[in-house]
């Protein structure tokens, strides 16, 4: 054996000199991993690692979390407030006071001139829960616009809506521990390995132990689909038909759980009558899954002693998104697969704190799943906040997608845009651009000054990001986890909470409403407001949450007083018969007639456009586009295109192609692969001025979530490749 040198130099291995590790929940997706960020002797964040004893991730992180410490110093961060009279003028540095006064004055001016709802506030799923709660209190209690929503409309509102329709309330009933008990898992339009890699790992750990059946419904052969026992490559947008057909088989063959249905649900007769129309033969013609497979899948699912279903954007981002969620819930309810170990319908959420905004932001109503439509809820919250209950609207206002349409139509005149980038994320970019151009006033509050939406802003407020702030977030399995301030925001940037409190001061001159300064105190206030509610968090506080590496709600003050420690995991909702959130404690079985209103390919636009996520990127790429060790895996937009289609069009591997839809066009590089069928391309949505130049984004009637995943396009070969490369590069700065 060879050993080389005798006189060896000392081995050098990089040592980042970490002297202290600080705790935070990850700020990317909703998995809710616990991270420790390592600081060197100078106090600079230099390293990230998974927290070993955190139940969610057990020491693991995905590639985004592994480099999350690099976020703090990434390019494009806002360092000071900026103002300008018109959006096409250059920015002028401003003081916090001047810019916040301007924001206050413009809100009041526009409201005075055009009515209280003519000013829209659009937030996000990215901030911390205390910030959401404070913004909600400010908006609902003091500013008083009913056009207040978050970008969670783009990812989670179908899940919210579906849960509400089926169970009477939002709130995913399952948990990650369900993987350890299930016998059958159906993943509907969910690509865990790419979107929620740590949840995938938890699933894989469980599957290697028990080898439960994995069924994946996805038009694209994702890694999850490839590794599934059964892959259902269905026709885009027809999930509901498949669900109905499965229920048809289940009822026909008597595989349903009559006891559970009797004890827990209403409406089974209407449901049975509806699914009667969806025999597998009829359904197979619509959804593209052959009748035998439909039967096998239905039987496998219904005959499992515990079966769970997960879903993500494949369901949510559809014109039948809310219906799809209801369909999943229907399947779970008729087979008794809710609230038991391994039996659940678990929405795999998108953003890190989409759950927090659902619970606490008051976007869709009032805190902790309270409804504006419910007089008692309005009374409770008004009293708690010390505001006039009559100040609250009696009905929820518009959602983000509708707000933009109203903006385009001239009904919305001003906007405060917080930690979201609709110029990249909303469908049909051309119309979004027009709508933003028209605003009399737009304030963008974001940690990045180079967020594309800031180009139409009159005031820019530099915010802190992720662990520059203090607070909590809720993950997919309802686990509240802590973010500690690891490093202060750069320059004059401030935590969003600080900004909301300063704005609140301007609307709260008489000091009538209390706005605590510390996130920990706000959390305790939220705890009191949560007592007796579904999402009861009254037993928790910041310290306990960090100590437990996150606590699943509910965890009540009563439990805490009893000395009952929060469980490590495995907490479920609706575990007892008749405890659903409808007043009678029963869930609703809702019939789902299918109307095909998708934009389906035709002669002029013969190709399906399917959009989706890549593991290395986070949403609009404002974060990951700047971190080389993430970005390098897909630095420019590309499409997966069938080699057969590419050959027909004369397109070669690595060439840029032009995609044209009824909305506009976009340029991306072609990567031929048989992962997609010949009549479909897959285009990641992360890139600015790309996928959403094409998408129609037809809105779901219940959730108002856009159907990003079903559009029709045509593809053209580009002769001048050099010009296309230049264009593709110019269209995004990072």
């Amino acid at each position: 054996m060879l050993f080389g040198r005798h006189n060896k130099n000392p081995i050098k291995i990089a040592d980042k000199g970490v002297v202290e590790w600080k705790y935070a929940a990850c700020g990317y997706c909703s998995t809710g991993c616990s991270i420790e960020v390592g600081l060197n002797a100078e106090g600079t964040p230099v390293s990230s690692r998974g927290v070993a004893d955190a139940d969610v991730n057990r020491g693991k992180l995905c590639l985004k979390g592994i480099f999350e410490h690099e976020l703090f110093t990434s390019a494009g961060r806002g360092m000071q407030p900026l103002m300008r009279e018109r959006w096409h003028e250059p920015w002028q540095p401003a003081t916090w006071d001047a810019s916040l006064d301007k924001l206050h004055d413009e809100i009041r001016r526009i409201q005075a001139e055009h009515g209280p709802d003519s000013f829209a506030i659009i937030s996000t799923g990215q901030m911390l829960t205390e910030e959401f709660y404070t913004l909600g209190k400010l908006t609902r209690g003091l500013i008083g616009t009913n056009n207040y929503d978050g970008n969670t409309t783009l990812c989670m509102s179908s899940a919210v809506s579906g849960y509400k329709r089926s169970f009477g309330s939002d709130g995913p009933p399952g948990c990650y521990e369900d993987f350890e008990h299930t016998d059958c898992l159906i993943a509907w339009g969910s690509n865990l390995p790419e979107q929620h890699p740590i949840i995938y790992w938890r699933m894989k750990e469980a599957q290697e132990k028990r080898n439960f059946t994995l069924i994946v419904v996805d038009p694209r052969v994702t890694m999850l689909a490839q590794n599934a026992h059964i892959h259902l490559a269905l026709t885009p947008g027809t999930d509901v038909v498949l669900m109905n057909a499965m229920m048809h088989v289940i009822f026909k063959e008597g595989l349903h759980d009559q006891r559970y249905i009797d004890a827990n649900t209403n409406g089974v007769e209407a449901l049975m009558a509806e699914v009667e129309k969806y025999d597998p033969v009829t359904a197979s013609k619509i959804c593209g899954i052959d009748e035998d497979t439909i039967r096998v899948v239905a039987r496998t699912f219904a005959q499992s002693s515990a079966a769970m279903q997960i879903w993500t954007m494949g369901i949510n981002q559809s014109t039948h998104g809310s219906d799809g969620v209801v369909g999943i819930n229907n399947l779970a309810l008729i087979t008794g697969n809710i609230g038991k170990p391994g039996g659940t319908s678990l929405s795999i959420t998108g953003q890190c704190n989409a759950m927090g905004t659902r619970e606490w932001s008051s976007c869709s109503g009032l805190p902790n799943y309270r409804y504006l439509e419910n007089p008692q809820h309005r009374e409770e919250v008004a009293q708690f906040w010390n505001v006039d209950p009559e100040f609250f609207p009696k009905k929820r206002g518009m959602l983000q997608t509708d707000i933009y349409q109203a903006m385009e139509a001239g009904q919305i005149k001003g906007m405060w845009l917080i930690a979201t980038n609709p110029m990249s994320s909303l469908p049909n970019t051309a119309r979004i651009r027009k709508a933003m151009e028209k605003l009399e006033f737009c304030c963008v509050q974001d940690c990045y000054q180079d967020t594309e939406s800031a180009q139409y802003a009159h005031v820019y407020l530099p915010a802190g990001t992720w662990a520059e702030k203090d607070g909590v977030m809720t993950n997919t399995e309802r686990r509240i986890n802590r973010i500690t301030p690891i490093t202060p925001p750069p320059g004059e940037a401030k935590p969003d909470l600080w900004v909301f409190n300063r704005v609140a001061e301007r609307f709260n001159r008489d000091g009538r409403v209390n706005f605590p300064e510390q996130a920990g105190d706000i959390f305790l206030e939220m705890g009191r407001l949560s007592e007796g509610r579904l999402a009861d968090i009254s037993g928790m506080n910041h310290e306990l949450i960090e100590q437990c590496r996150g606590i699943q709600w509910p965890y009540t003050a009563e439990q805490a007083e009893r000395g009952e420690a929060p469980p490590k995991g495995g907490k479920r909702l609706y575990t007892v018969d008749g405890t659903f959130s409808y007043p009678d404690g029963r869930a609703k079985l809702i019939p789902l007639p299918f109307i095909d209103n998708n934009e389906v390919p035709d002669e002029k636009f013969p190709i399906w456009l399917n959009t989706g996520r890549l593991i290395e990127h986070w949403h609009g790429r404002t974060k990951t586009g700047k971190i080389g060790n993430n970005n390098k895996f897909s630095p420019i937009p590309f499409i997966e295109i069938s080699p057969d289609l590419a050959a027909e069009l004369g397109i070669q591997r690595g060439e840029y192609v032009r995609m044209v839809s009824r909305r506009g066009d976009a340029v991306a590089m072609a990567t031929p692969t048989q992962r997609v069928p010949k009549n479909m391309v897959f285009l990641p949505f992360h890139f600015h001025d790309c996928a959403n130049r094409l998408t129609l984004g037809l809105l779901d009637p219940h959730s108002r979530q856009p159907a990003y995943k079903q559009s029709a396009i045509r593809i053209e070969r580009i002769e001048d490749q050099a010009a296309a490369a230049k264009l593709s590069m110019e269209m995004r700065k990072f």
Partner: protein
Amino acid sequence: MFPIRPNEPDYALLKDPSSKLQNRYGKSIETVPEGHELRGLSLNINGDAGIGANPNRYKQHGFFFNADNCIACHACEAACSEKNDNPAHIAFRSVGFVEGGTYPSYQRLNISMACNHCDNPVCLKGCPTRAYTKFAEYGAVLQDPDICFGCGYCTWVCPYNAPQLDPIKGQVSKCNMCVDRLEVGLKPSCVSACLGKALDFGVIENIPEGRSQARTEIPGFPRPDITHPNIRFQQTRTTQRDMVRVDSMPVKYHRDDDRGGFRPVLDPKHDFKREWNLDKLLGSHENAHIIFTLCVQAAMGAFLMLALGAWLNLAAVIEFIGGAAYLPAVGAMLGLMTFGLVKLNLHLGKPMRFYRGFNNWRLSPVSREIAGVSLFFAGLSGYAVFSVAGDILPAVAPYAGALKQVATAAGLLGLAFGGYYMIKLYRIPARPFWDHWHTGAAFSGTALGLGALLLALIALAFGAMTPDLGSGLASLIAAALLLEGVGLLAHLRDLRGQGEEGDASFYEQTTTFGYPYWLRNGLLALSLLLALIAAATGNPLLFFPLALTLTAAAIIGRALFYVLVIPTTMPGAFFWRNKGFVEHARAVGLADMPQLGVVPGRH
């Protein structure tokens, strides 16, 4: 010692309660026996004198990769780069993939690959500076960037793309097996980060719990006989017959039912259009090698003719040596050598460390080449000095003749030794296009052809051309061209259509560089015709067109030699580890963004 947490998760802990005695290549898994002098030493990591308590410290370790499970989540790569503080353009571990089938019966096979800490570490053997060490501890092959001078030869010989040449730092670095973690009983960072339950690590030949295979081949992985890599695979799913690379390399892997496993075969990715691509051909990083080999070979050829001609008492040569062209010829040889050596040295990442090139003379053909060429240069210099010394310093005159003979002998020795290893260093098993005797034929042909041409042109310039000399040199050029031509034909016969990466090189030769290739062939044929006519007629004027055709053929031919080599290496992904995308990013300016992970081109 690496700071271990009290609650390190179980998956991060090394578990090898027992191990086999020998690996499948017949090597002892124990690296050094009890009591060996290499036992009980500190690895001296960052100057720490501690010695790890790992009970398997002196056993060969290796990665285990379960290809059934990898999801290409990049967590291993990210964890590696985070731990080793690597910038985006450097990665000790990379995930690439191959794919096959037709929708929806489509299959993608991801492969995460770092260093395999081979039993036969070709990097260690190839490295001229002895920057590599195979340690008794864990059998880790570690490379010391502080010793490396950035020649990149290890990146040529390694089939796994493990050594990473950083063009910014001008040095190589690579996977260090996380020996700091091994010392405290932790698996490497990449393994601990794996989210697909694909990557594992332990004493070699041990099969991790829940796994059933320990193979050494999967589609896309180079054949193991080159280096005897310490990696084992599980891959139980039936793969498609054709598994295609998605990077720009025109290679796919085809199932070989007779021999088992997969063989690389040609995948004509970009049809059969013939192109010029002169900028790619002549603008590559390998220009230094083109210049160096051509210059040195021309000088060597000319020297050989003068030295042997004199020793053999050939009238034409004796006359040439006595004539006005002799000293200019010697000067030209020196000039060519100097130019070539300077160019070669400047292409190093760290030219100031050039002297380290001899360090690995025991093992490295590069060290031996450098030694031989240096000896030749010394001999040539002595030859030059003693050719004129007698005239300038009369005191030296009596010894000048003898000393010149000594220098000539040294020069010839250096020429033989250096010339041999100059060829030998290209006979790299992981580079099938080079690993053929045509490399020797081409280099020798260049030496004879350009050497003879050099003498002929100088003779013409200084009025020393004689019909004998002219036809002699023209005959040599014709012979050289025949040698090179026969070599090229044999190369074509042996590689084209035979599968492996060599076939892909020929595909590139006739498509991407199709016009230069045929231009070169035409120039060779024309040169041969001119040389034959010159040899027959003794017409010295023919050397002028011959100079053009022969030089052009040599430059294009040598450029093709470098640009066409397709290594036996790991498949890349579509952007990352895709040579085609790197070239594109450099061409259009994307590479100027540091977060792209592509270092802008430098010429």
